[in-house]
């Protein structure tokens, strides 16, 4: 991750304190183990070689094996998951922005990127001013044996603020936290509540320009919480920018000038707090891209075509996470299939069909996967560069279910997306000596499965 300070002059009067453009974040599941070694000991349960190889290199193209017998299902969650997708927004200085969304919508990941706890996969974030994360565990950065003054200096070091500057604000911190009687004592003398007050006061009184808060923004008893609100309001008037993510909608409504609604890592809406909260609580919202008909073709809630079964949507994305309708022959791409599995356990296998100028290209998951819990699952198929020749393709998905009685079709989504592939050879322009493509050619793709509502 790069975090540059621009070399040239900075326009300090620019109104935007935070600019986010094209931000995407992709998480990988837990680190792959050398699974083939664990076969020879009492370690982890043996896994298929394909899974181990795929784990070791996500770009590996898995073999397409139609033989399902005796295969172990790959573990769900051991895969790549997009937590944020193509986020672009700005936050004006002095604005308090509330970030809301369901679990797994990407709120915390967005804050983690803003506070540099995790690098973005794509995109740019511009932060104008000192950023201070206000985390519930801020006391964890302090040393209980040290005095309050030394702890203020300690937090300043973590924030990258000069210690001299921090020490000049110790009195203000102690006064705001109402800890004058403990001013000369070590932090160990403070109760848990007092420690929280001290931590909040330290974070706010060190005069950050941008405050990033996840879940907790006001602390202490009712009286102190009111003081926190007043202080945040006062500092916002002076230009403090706050980005605050929480499920406490009343706090969002009270503190925030604006709100940002996230769903599945995408911005659904941005606007007046009350309106965004209304959208969120009433549900049924769709992402901007979905509303514009650019993503999915997901059926409306309650009006699902029974023929689709659990297949909610399918869409092609670039490796940077952008939905695409055009793909250069030399580029990689990902097809994401969203499955809604109402019952568990369920053993499912997806097949992707791409109808193009030279017939149908099919790719099936090398093995079924078992969903141990009901919910929404994201099945991703990775198309290496050069997989598709030039032409227009229409993509469809078939989901098969496996039970003790055999396999059966759970549902299918035809013409879920289309993509124009350009820059490669077309069938018509291919050399006459080249072998003709079979009408139903199978593609070797790399697959992954993840719970889409369990994104970190």
């Amino acid at each position, binding site marked *: 991750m790069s975090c540059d300070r621009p070399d040239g002059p900075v326009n300090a009067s620019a109104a935007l304190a935070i600019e986010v453009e094209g931000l995407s974040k992709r998480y990988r599941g837990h680190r792959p183990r050398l699974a083939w070694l664990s076969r020879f000991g009492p370690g982890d349960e043996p896994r298929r070689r394909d899974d181990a190889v795929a784990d070791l290199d996500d770009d590996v193209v898995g073999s397409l094996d139609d033989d399902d017998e005796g295969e172990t299902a790959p573990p769900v969650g051991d895969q790549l998951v997009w937590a944020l997708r193509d986020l672009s927004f700005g936050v004006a200085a002095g*604005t308090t922005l509330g970030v809301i969304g369901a679990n797994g919508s990407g709120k915390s990941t967005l804050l983690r990127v803003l506070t540099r706890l995790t690098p973005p996969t794509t995109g740019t974030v511009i932060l104008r001013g000192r950023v201070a994360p206000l985390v519930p565990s801020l006391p964890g950065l302090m040393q209980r044996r040290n005095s309050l003054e030394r702890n203020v200096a300690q937090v300043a070091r973590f924030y990258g603020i000069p210690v001299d500057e921090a020490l000049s604000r110790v009195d203000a911190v102690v006064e705001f936290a109402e800890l004058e009687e403990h001013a000369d004592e070590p932090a160990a003398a403070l109760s848990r509540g007092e420690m929280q007050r001290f931590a909040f006061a330290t974070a706010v009184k060190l005069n950050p320009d941008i405050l990033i808060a996840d879940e907790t923004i006001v602390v202490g008893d009712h009286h102190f919480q009111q003081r926190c609100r007043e202080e945040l309001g006062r500092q916002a008037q002076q230009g403090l920018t706050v980005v605050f993510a929480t499920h406490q909608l009343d706090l969002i409504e009270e503190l925030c000038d604006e709100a940002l609604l996230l769903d599945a890592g995408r911005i659904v809406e941005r606007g007046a707090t009350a309106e965004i909260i209304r959208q969120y609580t009433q549900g049924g919202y769709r992402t901007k891209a979905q509303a514009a008909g650019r993503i999915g073709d997901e059926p409306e809630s309650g009006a699902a075509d029974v023929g689709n079964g659990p297949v909610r949507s399918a869409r092609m994305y670039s490796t940077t996470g952008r939905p695409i309708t055009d793909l250069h022959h030399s580029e990689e791409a990902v097809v994401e299939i969203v499955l809604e599995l109402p019952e568990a356990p369920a053993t499912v296998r997806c097949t992707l069909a791409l109808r193009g100028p030279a017939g149908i290209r099919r790719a099936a998951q090398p093995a079924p996967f078992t969903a141990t819990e009901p919910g929404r699952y994201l099945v991703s198929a990775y198309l290496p560069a050069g997989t598709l020749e030039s032409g227009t393709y229409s993509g469809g998905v078939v989901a098969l279910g496996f039970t003790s009685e055999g396999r059966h079709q759970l549902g299918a989504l035809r013409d879920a997306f289309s993509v124009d592939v350009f820059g490669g050879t077309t069938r018509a322009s291919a050399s006459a000596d080249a072998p003709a493509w079979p009408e139903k050619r199978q593609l070797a793709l790399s697959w992954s499965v993840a719970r889409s509502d369990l994104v970190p």
Partner: protein
Amino acid sequence: MADALATSATPRGGTVRSPDTRVIRPRPLGPARRVAEAWQYRGLAPFFAFDFASKAWANTWLGWWWVPLRPALSIIVRVLVFGTILRAPSGGVPYFIFFALGVAFWELFGVTWYFGTRSIELSKRYLKRIYVPRLVLLTASVSPGLMWCGVHLLIAEIGIFYYLAVDEKLYLNLGVNLLLALVGMTLMVGLALALGLWSSVFGAMGVRDPRWIVRQILHVWFYLTPVIYPLSAVPERFQGVMSANPLTAPMEMIRLGLVGYGDVRMSGVIITLVTILVIGFFGLRFFDSSEARSLDEL
């Protein structure tokens, strides 16, 4: 993309308060900027240095008493085995002093590399909450090595005073030669940090394999380095090979500087310097390009 950029309504504050602008991009920071950033956050190094050093007595009944006890017990047993029973050569220096000094600086190297490997992983409770330049953590990993080195040196001092009283001979060079020991010590720390640039990235991946591998390497390396025996005790035909060990020259420099007994060869010093520069240069590039991704593994 630009049309998706949503800006807010008129801000209450109106202007950005600070000209301190940062741009976060996916690409690595770059070795030079990374070093500069670590320097900016250097004030955090003592905090993490104490945090790492305190692992020596964390979760114990005896507390910090373990800090002198562990090396003392270890030295007594090993001096009995190697010095008294096996009669290992020590070039005229009492084996207790010879051994304690050797192990002191071996600990400086070994513990620094080991904690360097674990520096990111040991700090994950901070790294999950707030941004800390990871080079600061690696630098702070020198502290446990220095602590154990210091304790071993104190024990060696006790031996020196004992033999001063018994033999009426001071087995310690006091003078300009001590600078040679300082150079050797610096080379050892430099090599440990250079190796840590590589191993810390793997150590952050949430598995124990990297640290166990480092331990095994250290175990073998200990016997390949003239720590418990002098280089002169090695058969001559193997001495050239031994000099190729980048730790041989610093160890001999330290012995020569402290007790006046050591075999420092220029070729060995050059090998050590080149090794540090090569491993450190490429290690910094590797660290720069890889450590950010390892954060997601924490």
